[in-house]
């Protein structure tokens, strides 16, 4: 169940690598459903931020608190990586894998696998080895594999970075359906057009700090920080 209320709190979160602070300190309240898009120049710390939220990045100091206990929270989350990670198995087996981990009954697994394979247009390729799919097909498969668990929160790290227009459109459709079904989506992207199309809320990251956050319309029409203004202008941010 996703509410419009607060779902995560970050307090004093700092991530250091090799002595250098790559992220933080960050104090942030996250609330609401729909699309939260994380924007920022390269190296701003977007991926690290996402991984921190998902709990797969070690925090040097500070805390991330979810509205549910940490274990249940992570079980209700799914993550799609920028480069899709395919299991060296068939399409069918890739889709079934997360459900097998949960110990769902075979009939349930089979039903969901068939449904999602059809949704991403790979019904005819069920037994095809996943690593041999095209880039776009792999990313769609990764997305379906993430959504097959019906997560509350879906993280995506630049999901369409290496894809053509058609695959991008198909993926954005699936994402919209997911939010309509009740999932909240937190994603990073380089593509300002995509951000404009999808975002309900924007977080602007620069140099490891959250420089701006707020409703999408406000951000795109009237950015407050110089970094954000420059970024929207297409300037190089250092």
């Amino acid at each position, binding site marked *: 169940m996703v509410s419009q209320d607060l779902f995560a709190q970050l307090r004093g979160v700092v991530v250091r690598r090799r002595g250098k602070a790559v992220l933080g300190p960050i104090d942030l309240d996250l609330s609401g459903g729909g699309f939260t898009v994380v924007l920022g120049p390269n190296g701003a710390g977007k991926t690290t931020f996402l991984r921190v939220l*998902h709990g*797969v990045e070690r925090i040097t100091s500070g805390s991330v608190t979810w509205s549910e206990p940490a274990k249940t929270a*992570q*079980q209700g989350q*799914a*993550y799609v*990586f920028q480069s899709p*990670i395919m*299991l*060296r*198995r*068939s399409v069918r087996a890739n889709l079934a*894998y*997360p459900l097998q*981990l949960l110990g769902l009954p075979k009939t349930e697994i089979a039903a969901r696998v068939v449904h999602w394979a059809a949704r991403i247009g790979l019904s005819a390729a069920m*037994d095809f*080895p996943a690593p041999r799919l095209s880039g776009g097909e792999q990313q769609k498969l990764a997305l379906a594999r993430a959504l097959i668990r019906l997560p509350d929160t879906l993280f995506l790290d630049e999901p369409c970075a290496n894809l053509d227009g058609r695959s991008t459109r198909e993926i954005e459709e699936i994402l919209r359906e997911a939010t309509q079904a009740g999932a909240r989506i937190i994603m990073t992207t380089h593509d300002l057009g995509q951000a404009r199309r999808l975002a309900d809320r924007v977080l602007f990251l620069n140099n490891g700090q959250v420089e701006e956050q707020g409703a999408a319309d406000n951000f795109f029409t009237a950015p407050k920080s110089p970094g954000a203004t420059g970024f929207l202008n297409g300037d190089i941010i250092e």
Partner: protein
Amino acid sequence: MSEIWAGMAEAFLLIWSRDADLIEITLRSLQVSLSALVIASAVALPLGTWLAIRRFRHRRFVIATLNALMGLPPVVVGLIVYLLLSRSGPFGVLGLLFTPAAMIIAQVIIITPLIASITHQAMRELWSDYHDLLISLNTTHGQRIATLILDGRRTLMTAALAGFGRAIGEVGAIMIVGGNIDHVTRVLTTAISLETGKGDFALALGLGFVLIALSLMVNLAIHSLSRTEREGRW
């Protein structure tokens, strides 16, 4: 050179006539080495996989030790196992010395580090591919090991075959702990050693060719098994 031809002829004759002794020692060779392979794999495959995914303080040291153990001279292993299993030794009361069981024990000790090391290399690669995904999906350690072993099974097969090759061609350790007793612990390699010592090179070579053929057949059998899986999946 003529002796090599004589050896091949001898091998052919032995097989053609279905020589009873040959069949007996061949079956025993397979029994000992395959048993050792199964036991060693049961230990080494999970161990190598576990080492690939687990981070702990002395990990580098353990891996280095494992790689070093691959170089254990088999005859030294045989000597140590003999001293342990001897009636005057700690485990003498088990009465295992000069039986096929002792040979299996020695070979397990010899091939486990080899299989574990190859497994570790292969699983490390696969783990670096799967790492982010499996962590993201909240997998337990057991689930990770199972997934890696399942998806890496082709490389693991190679590791197992390497172990088998080492075992079936081994002679130093099993000579000491088995005693090369006729009809009890004589296998192809120890028989070759015996016949060479008697100066009967033709027979020794003949047995040698049988051993090579056996090893090839096992390799081919396993590879063809994995390929039939291939047609279905890949």
